[in-house]
């Protein structure tokens, strides 16, 4: 009798354990969501300086330059920043090195550079658009829900909803566009349309039109690493589609959290200081 009860209890325990295991996430290797896809949830950030200039470039004195007696020098407005305002070098993140601009578009890019302080939307704390939001020098957080994925960027609190069911064409252009995601194996592919023409790709005047179509690929290759690729197609501006590639790193440790960077109020003196009742001298 005792043996029968003991045996039953053992089987019961085994059954209980198995039944519970059905609803635990599959572990080992990459963190995975219940549906088996890699779980991209977490705080991520790039470790490169693509936000300055996505093309290969040497270090330079400042983002805004002017002609000097011998070589170009920092513009007057940024002179006092000294080395703090300098731009680090980078082998670039554009596959093939250079962005394949149309001739007229390249002229505009160069004009953007020459008029940097007037034109970069980041200076006015405007939304960064896609893909610039990914490699801003601030982290972002992915919330991978069962039916929706949300990206929250520290820079200006920008946010992107990744629809997992296609809602149809975007009703209008917007700064962050409309993102529709689907999985190809372990890669999250995000198709972005409906971007307006107001954002740049970096702090070096690289830009696009509102015909831009971006396809992003997020491939988790290790628990704390995502390989990111973005293919840009814009027949008005580029002669062909082109791709950028970089690595996203998971922020770890007690300080791995998004801080608030609501830069709107930081630029009020710049934009409206002259309209104060008593403007500063």
């Amino acid at each position, binding site marked *: 009798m005792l043996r029968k009860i003991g*045996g039953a209890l053992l*089987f019961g325990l085994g059954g209980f354990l198995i039944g519970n295991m059905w609803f635990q996430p599959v572990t080992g290797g990459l963190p995975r969501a219940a549906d088996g896809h890699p779980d991209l949830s977490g705080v991520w950030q790039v470790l490169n300086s693509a936000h300055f200039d996505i093309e290969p470039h040497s270090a330079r004195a400042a983002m805004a330059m002017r002609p000097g007696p011998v070589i170009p020098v920092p513009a007057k407005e940024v002179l006092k920043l000294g080395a703090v305002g300098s731009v680090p070098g980078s082998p670039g993140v554009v596959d093939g090195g250079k962005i394949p601009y149309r001739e007229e578009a390249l002229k505009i890019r160069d004009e953007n550079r020459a008029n940097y302080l007037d034109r970069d939307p980041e200076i006015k704390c405007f939304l960064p658009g896609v893909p610039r939001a990914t490699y801003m020098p601030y982290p972002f957080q992915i919330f991978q829900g069962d039916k929706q994925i949300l990206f929250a960027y520290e820079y200006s609190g920008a*946010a992107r909803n990744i629809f997992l069911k296609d809602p149809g064409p975007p009703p209008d252009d917007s700064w962050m566009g409309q993102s529709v995601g689907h999985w190809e194996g372990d890669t999250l592919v995000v198709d972005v349309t409906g971007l307006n023409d107001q954002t740049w790709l970096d702090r070096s005047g690289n830009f696009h039109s509102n015909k831009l179509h971006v396809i992003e690929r997020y491939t988790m290759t290790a628990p704390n690493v995502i390989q990111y690729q973005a293919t840009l197609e814009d027949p008005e501006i580029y002669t062909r589609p082109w791709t950028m590639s970089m690595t996203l790193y998971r922020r770890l440790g007690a300080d791995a959290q998004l801080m608030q960077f609501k830069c*709107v109020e930081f630029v009020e003196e710049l934009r409206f200081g002259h309209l104060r*009742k008593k403007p500063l001298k």
Partner: protein
Amino acid sequence: MKFHLLIFFTTVLASVFVSMGVRLSDEYVPPKTSFGDPDLQGIWTNRSLTQLERNSSARGPTLTRKEEDMILARLKANHNTDTDFYELRATDARGVKELEIHGYDGIYGDQGYRFARIGGRIRAQWLTDPIEGMVPYNKKTLQFFKKRQYERLYSFDNPEDIWPSERCIIGFGSTSGPPMLNVLYNNFYQIVQSPGYVAILVEMNHDVRIIRLGGKHLPPEMRPWMGDSIGWWEGNTLVVETTNFNPAQGIAATKGQPVYVSPNSKVTEWFTRISNREIDYKFRVEDPEAYRQPWSAQMRFLAHPGPLYEYACQEGNLDVELILAGARYKERQNKGAGHVQRDSISLKSQVPPRLQSKSESD
């Protein structure tokens, strides 16, 4: 052996049901996310004619159907003549009547079509304590609030004098709060959950409230907009505690529902999904230095198909520039003849009498 197998499969089945959270009672049990947290996810709206404080036409915390119908009829009549949005000013020095547009076309309004029903009663106010339906500011706080409301109508010396919502820092009213209050439009929220976090995307001003489950507050000298939120689960209820408010936020106000949440307040929110289509939302605001007592309220969020749209405020904002430029222009015209008046009757009518004058005695 058969007996053992029976016990085995029965236990498997029972444990499956237990881990799925199936109860034997009738009470609604919210679904769980794939990682086991109660599921609050989806798109929700709190739009309603019910506001935080008691509706001026109500005689108690609730309304009868007849009272609601009367209020709706009056609102409908007013909406047709657009008196909310247009104001005919007195003639100017050239004898020309100026039609001044204050806000927006009626097309933007999306404040809901009825008052909220909670527990079978039509609510004239969200406040549950004090039941009299007025936020229990203490004398000092009310004085400060009145002063700031007055300044809001008359002071345009600096961008910092303008409402945070018009500066495009946060949304109007207390739409993101916390507490999250319904306003004139954009009353949409999207909740997305991942392990250890609940994220609430507030449509206006594309703000994501990131609630760190089991997190610790920032040091007291750090004062982000919308404060700092940590949370935890109590059964199926998400409890969120927010402190560290930015001192400039509390003065945000909107048409019909000015509310001052003091910077040292502790705001506690309780989110419970009570059906597939409804979240019960309760909150309490505590600051013994600012209020005569803690105050509490209850609201409902209803499921909505959405989607949420981008609210790119900063990118298209002409408010700050034109308000300041306009004030400077008027000053040049007046050449020091008293301070510039933002506007007249219509804006004042949006501010309850108790908050209108600078002095404490009103």
